[in-house]
């Protein structure tokens, strides 16, 4: 009896294996992976894209910006999502990749609300994160030790915060958290803490800091008064296929740019007044509208 059952089990297993082996690989599947900060937009866009285009299956994965860029370079996925420029990642041949900027997110320093500080100068901000200023008392706040919480090394949010917020200074070694959610929880609960998060995560449990009197708002990002912001990139190989291009066009369509992106707290790239290159050079983006395909070649 047992033997017969076992044999049946093996048979079923064998059939199943051969079935999966025979399934034709759908040519119309797109795989995206990378930045977790960018993921909510991509997922929402992908699910509405899947509804309209039944023949294409868009599959979105996380993994981090580094994974996204290196996998697209290897050809393992079709689109790599990243919140940093590919050329800022070591070990990537950025010249093989094409950059498509889809959205913009602001990044703001945040503190525990009990700290009593709402505005700092950029110099003071650098002082805090490099460990020169150790108490909130020196900044007009309460007599509380400053506790810095960093995002992990290599995180896009951290890279961009150091680049634009700390003027290229590196943050000192301190606690590191791998997710924005945890950072928000810690800063909300621990007096004296400071960290940095992307705009969509701002809540009333934490206090965003103004820098040099400029408030962290979407409007200030659009006019570049608020300097700490970053593009959400979609990288493809220079030689990409029709399906990939169709999806990228959809990411620049009104449905995504005007509905999905603002709904999730990000800024559509099409509404930016300026275009900023990797090293910070600003150019006008044609009356507040970026080019329709939103892409530009990324020379290394």
């Amino acid at each position, binding site marked *: 009896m047992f033997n017969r059952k076992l044999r049946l089990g093996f048979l079923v297993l064998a059939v199943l294996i051969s079935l999966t082996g025979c399934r034709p690989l759908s040519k119309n599947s797109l795989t995206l992976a990378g930045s977790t900060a960018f993921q909510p937009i991509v997922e929402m866009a992908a699910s509405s894209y899947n509804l309209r285009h039944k023949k294409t299956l868009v599959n979105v994965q996380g993994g981090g910006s580094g994974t996204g860029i290196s996998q697209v370079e290897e050809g393992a996925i079709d689109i790599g999502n990243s919140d940093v420029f590919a050329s800022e*990642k070591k070990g990537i041949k950025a010249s093989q990749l094409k950059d498509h900027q889809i959205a913009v997110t602001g990044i703001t320093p945040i503190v525990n609300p009990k700290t009593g500080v709402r505005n700092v100068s950029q110099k003071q901000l650098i002082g805090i994160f490099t460990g020169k200023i150790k108490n909130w008392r020196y900044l007009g706040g309460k007599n509380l030790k400053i*506790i810095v919480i960093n995002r992990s090394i290599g995180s896009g949010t951290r890279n961009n915060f150091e680049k634009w917020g700390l003027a290229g200074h590196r943050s000192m070694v301190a606690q590191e958290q*791998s997710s924005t959610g945890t950072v928000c929880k810690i800063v909300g609960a*621990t007096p004296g803490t400071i960290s940095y998060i992307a705009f969509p995560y701002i809540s009333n449990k934490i206090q965003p800091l103004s820098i040099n009197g400029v408030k962290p708002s979407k409007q200030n990002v659009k006019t570049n008064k608020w300097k700490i912001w970053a593009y959400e990139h979609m990288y493809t190989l220079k030689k990409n296929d029709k399906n990939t291009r169709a999806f990228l066009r959809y990411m620049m369509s009104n449905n995504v740019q005007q509905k999905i992106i603002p709904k999730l707290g990000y800024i559509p790239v099409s509404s930016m007044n300026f275009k900023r290159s990797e090293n910070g050079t600003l150019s006008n983006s044609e009356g507040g509208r970026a080019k329709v395909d939103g892409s530009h070649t990324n020379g290394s």
Partner: protein
Amino acid sequence: MMDPIQTDLKKRSAASKSEKRGQCLTFLCIGISVLIIVALIFFITYKGLLLFLQDKVSILSFLSGISWDPNNGNFGALSMLLGSMIVTILAVFLAFPFSFGTAIFISEIKFSRGRNYLRLAIEMLIGIPAVVYGFVGISVVVPLLRVTMGGTGFGLLAGAIILAMMILPTISTLCVDAFKGVPEMYRYTSRALGATQWQTLRRIVLPIAKPRIVTAILFGMSQAFGEAVAIQMVIGNATLIPTHLMSPAATLTSVITIGMGDSVRGSIENDALWSLALLLLLISLLFNLFARFAMRKRN
């Protein structure tokens, strides 16, 4: 022309054929397991050595360096090595007394009727996923430490408490097995000679069970050393040399888990993470070797 009885005898019977098939099948299973282990060790060793061979980082500076900043070419793993070791030792110190007591209760104190259920409960603890322990750490242990000890609450102590909870069932069950391994006859003899239960335990059972208890501790340490997800959630992940119990620290595992997604494959930052993995593998193998050694001593 052979006679039919002879052919029948020389022919393999169905039972012996199925025997052969069974042997082949089990051999295949173990072969695959061994293959996987060898491949894994080979792969990690290869990737882990790249940092030293290809990127020319000296092994000495890797093992003794304090600063871990792969983006700027500082590859000192000492703070993580220390973090892993301290948190492991602390966890064993916290967990062992409880495990030991539990094991004695389950295996030696005979009048308790519910001891089988107790053992079941402890074995069930093993099945709880690491993430759940980490979640308990973030939502209970860390806030508790924050309120009582100050600071953020993330740090060595939080990590050690969570790890202690995780290795408690491992050490307990292995200790129970250690006590069960002592023949019942010895206990009867001792009791017949007029020794109390405590005397029997101390003079007879413990000395015999000792090597296996040491093994239990070593397995607990090995588990604590290799734990990644839960510890990463509560230790604070600061690559600093820890100065006191509440200071945030980092372990080899936490740095690997956090760093892998954000580093580019083939880059020097990525190679450095693989070197950490190699270090972790070597130390875990050492733990296993010691455990085996402790077991052999008994025989």
